Structures are given as C-alpha cells and as structure tokens.
C-alpha cells in the first residue's frame, strides 16, 4: 500500500485567466497534505490540512472566495469522514467561519451527531473556541462580480458555474 493524497479544486468552467491560479493552488494544497502523511500524520489529518489550504486560497469556491447566495451572503457546507470507524462530521449553511472543514472535524470528534447546521453550527463553533470572522473577509471581488452578473433575470447560475452540458 502506498500513501497518497489527492485534491480537487472544483469541477466546472475555469476561465483561462484563472487556470494558473487553480493549478498552483491545488499543487500547494496537495504538497501540504502529503507533508502531513510524511510526518506520520493520519489520512484524516492530511485531508483536513489540504482542504484548509484550499479554503484559505481565494481562487477557490470554499472558505475565502466562496460564491454568494442570492442575498449576497456567504453560506458554506463542509464534510469529513474517516474509513476506519466510519466516523464523520459535517456543517451546513455556516457563516463567519474561516475554515468550515475544521468545524466539521470538530463535529466528528466532539459530538455524537453527524451534521450541525446554520445557527446551531455557529453556537457549537463558539463553544469550541473557533473564532468568528467578518463576512467581508470571505468575499472576493470575483465572487461579488459573479453574483451581480447572475442577478440578471435571464441568468443561469448553474450553467455559469458548471458549463453547458455536452
């Protein structure tokens, strides 16, 4: 068996001018995750490290750089699972958290539940000492531009994000 880390930065349409950002982002993240494995860390430690890297990179749609909902707000979802015990944790519709993936891991490690949502997830984050961040710190000019563009009555947000079906 050969230890390995694989990451993705999202499927869909990636404009040419952002392709370099995407490639450098995923290679940095996979290096970070692999360094954890080489240091003796677990596969769970590695995937959380890699995804934290991607959440902190504004080129990707998670954490900083998340797309906006119809009101122009950030609502994020995250999930972790480990294969030895089928342990898992998730959060949905969370706001004002820099790294939802770390909160999902806390749900797995510190509760008997699988998923916490919205205000309940925020309360749990507070109880765990996870710092809140201003929403503005998660919003990029690029995500705001795409939000404005997709407010048009004839816009197709799914096609805009995923591309046309072949």
């Amino acid at each position, binding site marked *: 068996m050969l230890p390995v*880390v694989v990451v993705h930065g999202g499927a869909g349409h990636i404009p040419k001018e952002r392709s370099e950002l995407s490639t450098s982002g995923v290679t940095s993240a996979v290096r970070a995750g692999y360094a954890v494995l080489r240091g003796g860390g677990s596969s769970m430690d590695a995937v959380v490290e890699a995804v934290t890297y*991607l959440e902190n990179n504004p080129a990707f749609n998670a954490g900083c750089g998340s797309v906006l909902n119809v009101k122009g707000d950030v609502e994020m979802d995250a999930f972790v699972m480990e294969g030895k015990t089928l342990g898992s944790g998730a959060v949905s519709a969370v706001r004002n958290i820099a790294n939802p993936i770390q909160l999902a891991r806390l749900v797995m490690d510190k509760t008997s539940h699988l998923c916490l949502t919205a205000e309940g997830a925020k309360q749990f984050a507070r109880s765990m000492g996870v710092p809140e961040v201003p929403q503005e710190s998660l919003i990029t000019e690029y995500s705001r531009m795409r939000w404005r563009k997709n407010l048009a009555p004839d816009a197709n947000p799914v096609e805009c994000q995923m591309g046309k079906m072949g």
Partner: protein
Amino acid sequence: TVGAVAVDSQGNVACATSTGGILNKMEGRVGDTPCIGCGGYADNMVGAVSTTGHGEAIMKVVLAKHILYQMEQGQSVEAASDLGLACMKFRAAGLGGVITVDPQGHWAARFSSRQMAWAAAQKDTLHYGLYEGE
C-alpha cells in the same frame, strides 16, 4: 467546491469536502457536500471519494457511495469513478468530478465537466491537471 482524499501508512482512508455552494443559491440551500455518501464517503474496506459539481444531481445518485459500490463489485478506481459520473449525467443531467482512492493507494481524478483542477502526491511525485487527459 474543494476536496481531498488520502490513504496513510496504516492503510486508513479519509475524505474531506468543503464548498460555498452554487452561484446565487437560495438562502438556506444545502447541497451535496455535507450529505453523507453524496459529497464524500470513506470506508477502509473499499476506499474514499470526494465529489464536486452539480449538487442536486450528485444527491440524486448518491455519487460517492455509488462509486464505492462499483468498486465493491470489482471495478477499478478509474472505472468506478467514470461509471458514477456517467450515471449522474444520464440519470440526473448533472456534470461534475470526483477524486477516488482505494486502501492500496490506487487513485483517480475524473470529471465529466470541461475542467477540474486536481493534484495528487504519491512516492514523492506530484501529478496535476486541469483538462481531460492531463
């Protein structure tokens, strides 16, 4: 959406997926990412998957678990990933991508969308791509 899957030196697999969702979604919309078996799944008996793409379609076919089921039936990580994506395309009219590993360290990065940024590290070698075939 972003995600990761890994196998460690003990043969334990894990997955992680995180997302801001779909552009201009309704307030309160929850996609596939936090739904077990959809945005990801990990089982030491079979492997681990993280998914990305059209969340509603991913949920309709329970994509991550669907791929692991194909692997349980004897498919390789590549073939199982392709079968899962094909099922999503033809049954739920959705595009997306997946990264998959098995406990032996075999891995795949496959997508039905035009592009997906991905990277893999194994045996101190880095692999990456953006377009089909890379």
